[in-house]
């Protein structure tokens, strides 16, 4: 309960702060919902940067953060009170009332899927990347009271905007509040899709687009993990939303706001550069329609780029200053720092032109080849409905332009499904528009039932994904039982935490998840990349200084220099765990 209250306070602050700042960029918002999504986007950006500012100065203590929260709460109180006064029941929630059975069904999906996912979001973390760095590094930041480079890590100087909320949550001793931030960005993405589609098209289409997005397995599973991809998706979508408003109203502030959101997305992940490039094409297309002079086009692109740069450059600059590479460890041939990465080798099914056109099929049928997330069967089954889009409508042309440019770059750079959540949103808007376009012409009663059936199936997947966490929330299982069943490192970390001195150093060999170890952890894989020093002599050096040193070895990892230790010594612990679907491995703990 404390966690929910804490997070509600953060949401309230984000709205209030953002509402104050929004008036600098846009004169008015069309609806209450539009007001909420734009204000929250700006407010969370401000809060994230405030935490980063405090952290990079080394003042990341409970006191300064609580003082900051109190000041922000005062600043947010005025706009929040005005919001409450604007709420008139039931008029403010008219958009919630569906018109027919199908609409009411979609509305139910829009309510129940986020509610179910909330249980997952409040459960202990089990996501791989969250335990390997999103939450793990945030825990280290909170523990050492500053934000910066963590030795022998690959990611700690990546754009970490999303991790600022995890850091704040963990500093206030709430993993749940940390996790809820990512869940809430998912909710904001769904709401912004609804608000956008209602503003540019209609309420009916908005309801379908938002429900399809919410029922996409990739979205509702991600909402339960402390990742940053929904944060990236939300800010990228808000950048598109703002630019579409700019095309309509031609207020420079909206173009700047779009750049700002694109920059925040870049502060979450480098891959958001795809959205910025796609936005440039939308600007060019609108200028082509309006026959704008070349000089003015350059000025517009300059404004967009300037605000994106201003909002995002700091993360890349710090990586360059500390490690000599703004995108460490990538592009090591150019910057001379980093190493050859093979991230793309494990993603996608093909790399040729035909592969691009087969994408809709491949990413739905070969679900494991695109990073583990799923867009869902609805995308492929109803993709042909895009033929029925009213192509002459300019707003649809802009959306389609963004969709296709983003898809092309994504396919070339790295077709991991979670990097393209913004295009999930655009795709479901286009499918919704196509569906109603075709329905008006051909009826499509059977297809509507089929669509409803697919949505119900996705809902059942959501139930399956979350039933363990519902049992946890109801007290049927305990936190430790849940973690022992679902997280491979938990019993191992539990043994280490209970049986080693608190000042121990644990070298992880073949395991990347460090979050549940309450000890100083060193990733052997990163050591290999970042220093030429021999690790065995370093460990001997540690033991000679009386630092208790241990090796935690996972036996499916072959290339390492610890053979003599593993062969000669008796392990303190031997534990077999399921490490992936259909794969088991054994963990051994050795004292050096």
């Amino acid at each position: 309960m404390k966690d929910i209250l804490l997070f509600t306070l953060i949401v309230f602050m984000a709205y209030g702060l953002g509402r104050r700042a929004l008036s600098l960029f846009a004169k008015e918002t069309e609806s209450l919902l539009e007001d909420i999504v734009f204000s929250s986007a700006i407010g969370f950006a401000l809060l994230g940067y405030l935490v980063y500012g405090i952290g990079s100065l080394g003042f990341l203590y409970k006191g300064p953060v609580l003082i900051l929260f109190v000041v922000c709460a005062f600043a947010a109180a005025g706009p929040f009170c005005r919001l409450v006064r604007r709420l008139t029941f039931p008029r403010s929630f008219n958009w919630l009332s569906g018109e027919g059975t199908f609409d009411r069904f979609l509305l139910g999906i829009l309510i129940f899927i986020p509610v179910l996912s909330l249980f997952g979001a409040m459960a202990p973390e089990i996501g791989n990347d969250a335990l390997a760095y999103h939450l793990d590094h945030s825990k280290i930041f909170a523990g050492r009271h500053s934000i910066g480079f963590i030795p022998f890590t690959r990611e700690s100087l990546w754009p970490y905007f999303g991790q600022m909320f995890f850091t704040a949550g963990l500093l206030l001793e709430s993993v749940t509040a940390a996790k809820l931030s990512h869940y809430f960005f998912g909710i904001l993405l769904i709401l912004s899709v609804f608000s956008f589609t209602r503003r540019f098209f209609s309420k009916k289409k908005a309801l379908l687009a938002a429900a399809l997005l919410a029922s996409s397995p990739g979205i509702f599973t991600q909402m339960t993990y402390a990742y940053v991809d929904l944060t990236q998706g939300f800010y990228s979508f808000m950048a598109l939303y703002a630019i579409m408003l700019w095309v309509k109203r031609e207020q420079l502030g909206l173009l700047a706001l779009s750049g700002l959101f694109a920059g925040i997305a870049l502060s979450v992940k480098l891959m958001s550069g795809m959205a910025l490039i796609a936005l440039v094409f939308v600007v060019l297309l609108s200028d082509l329609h309006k026959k704008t002079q070349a000089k003015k086009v350059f000025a517009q692109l300059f404004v967009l780029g300037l605000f994106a740069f201003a909002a995002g450059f700091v993360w890349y600059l710090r990586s360059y200053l500390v490690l000599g590479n703004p995108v460490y460890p990538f592009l090591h041939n150019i910057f001379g720092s980093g190493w050859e990465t093979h991230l793309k080798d494990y993603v996608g099914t093909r790399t040729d032109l035909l592969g691009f056109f087969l994408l809709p099929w491949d990413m739905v049928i070969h679900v494991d080849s695109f990073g583990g997330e799923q867009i869902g069967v609805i995308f492929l089954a109803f993709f042909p409905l895009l033929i029925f889009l009213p192509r002459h409508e300019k707003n649809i042309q802009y959306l389609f332009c963004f969709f296709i440019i983003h898809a092309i770059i994504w396919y070339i750079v790295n077709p991991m499904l979670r990097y393209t959540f913004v295009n999930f949103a655009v795709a479901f808007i286009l499918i919704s528009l196509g569906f109603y376009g075709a329905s008006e012409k051909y009826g499509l009663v059977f297809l509507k039932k089929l669509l409803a059936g697919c949505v119900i199936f996705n809902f059942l997947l959501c139930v399956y994904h979350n039933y363990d966490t519902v049992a946890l929330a109801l007290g049927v299982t305990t936190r430790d039982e849940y973690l022992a069943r679902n997280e491979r490192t938990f019993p191992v970390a539990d043994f280490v935490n209970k049986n080693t001195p608190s000042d121990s150093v644990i070298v992880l060999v073949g395991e990347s998840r460090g979050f549940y170890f309450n000890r100083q952890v060193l990733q052997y894989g990163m050591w290999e990349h970042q220093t030429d020093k021999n690790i065995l002599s370093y460990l001997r050096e540690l033991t000679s200084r009386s630092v208790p040193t241990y090796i935690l070895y996972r036996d499916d990892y072959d290339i390492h220099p610890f053979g003599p230790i593993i062969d000669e010594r008796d392990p303190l612990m031997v534990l077999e765990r399921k490490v992936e679907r259909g794969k088991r491995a054994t963990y051994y703990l050795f004292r050096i």
Partner: protein
Amino acid sequence: MVDHKKIQDWSKDMEISVLDRVVPIVLSIWAILVIVVYAAAFIYPRIISLIKR
């Protein structure tokens, strides 16, 4: 007086063209095909692994 021309036009409007019949059928067949393939490729192996577990 009955306007026969108007009635004729109206009945012409009411005629269902071949395309109007074919498009929903083709779309439905595609969607069913996709759902069946998806079920075979994704759902079936998971159900089997669940049963085995």
